[in-house]
């Protein structure tokens, strides 16, 4: 399955959550999903690294979570709706996350959306 070329692979700046990414990011997304639980959020808040030990994340995935490397989380198999749970945990907005993923401040991103959004480039 991993060897099959997809006709969306050439779209720039885009991560399609297909089977390849689901396999790569399974443990990562499982961790992110646990943030739904308020008790888990408290445990994670007290000791982020310690809580991550419970999941078989790769070193890169661990680093991306701890450093809030938002695009890294996508590259390493995170699903955007699961990654969003970490952003909510931090009290951030979707526009902040979009800005972080596309190299803009939240204000710049917000203004871009008010101006009609990003133009198609793929």
């Amino acid at each position, binding site marked *: 399955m991993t060897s099959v070329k*997809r*006709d*969306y692979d050439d*779209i*720039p*700046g*885009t*991560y*399609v*959550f*297909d*089977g390849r990414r*689901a396999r790569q990011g*399974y443990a990562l*997304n*499982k961790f992110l*999903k646990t*943030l*739904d639980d*308020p008790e888990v959020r408290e445990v994670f808040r007290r000791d982020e690294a310690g809580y991550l030990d419970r999941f078989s994340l790769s070193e890169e995935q661990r680093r991306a979570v701890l450093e809030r490397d938002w*695009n890294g989380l*996508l590259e390493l198999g995170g*699903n*955007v*709706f*699961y*990654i*969003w*749970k970490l952003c*909510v*945990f931090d009290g951030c*907005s*979707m*526009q902040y*996350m*979009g*800005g972080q*993923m*596309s*190299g803009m401040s939240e204000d710049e*991103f917000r203004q*871009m*959306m*008010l101006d*009609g*959004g*990003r*133009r*198609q*480039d*793929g």
Partner: protein
Amino acid sequence: MAEVIAGVASSHVPPIGAAIDRGKTDEPYWAPLFEGYEKAREWMAENTPDVCVLVYNDHANAFGMEMIPTFAIGVAPEFEPADEGFGPRPVPTVQGHPELAWHLAESLILDEFDMTIVNEMTVDHGFTVPLSILFGQVDEWPCPVIPIVVNVTQYPPPTGKRCYALGQAIGRAIASFDQDLKVTVLGTGGMSHQLGGARAGLINEEFDRDFMDRIGPDPESLLDLTHTDYIRAAGTEGVELVMWFIMRGALDERVHEVHRHYHVAASNTATGLIIYEND
């Protein structure tokens, strides 16, 4: 016999729900969006159905990575709003319609659509935001609502063609139910948007307006759009538009448009709303 009287397509952007919950709809940022919803609310108040069938996608709330049904139907008597990380939305519990829902489940499966049957689940913003758009802030929703859940978060979602065929089957199933019920079918999601990556914030107004122009009079002209066509033109989450075809398929071949509203942007998303009545 039960009868489909109307179809509504609507975006389901979370901050639209938050704006309603926090009384911000008159603020300059939100007012232009909500002005376009006024007519829809008036129409809904005058044409409240006995039951709604609401097509939406769950966003990693009721369903996790463990299992990802392509099409599911909620048959429970009620559905609680999900806690999406900041507490459940302050909206009423949704009353289901188990009798019609089970009839739909059985009819659809025998009609060769392999539905997953869900007895217990919460409903997230994908479900509750369209209800808030159409019914406003209420103590209880004015009618029971049956959830039809479509996977669009794990690639590949069902194709537009398959969704349209499912909608047609839902139309047949409703027409064969032996109670006099007026049913409105809601298709939600879209319009163009992409949440992740360097292309986050993508909007394609031309694509969205063309889609809205065609889905009423000529839906079949849109059915050959591939997932890659949607992702390329309308963003990774623009592919949610396949869910509009389930609504459209449940309606008659000929429909007339009652109201349309398009607005850029609500948070990260282009939003659209269309109401159709059967001719």
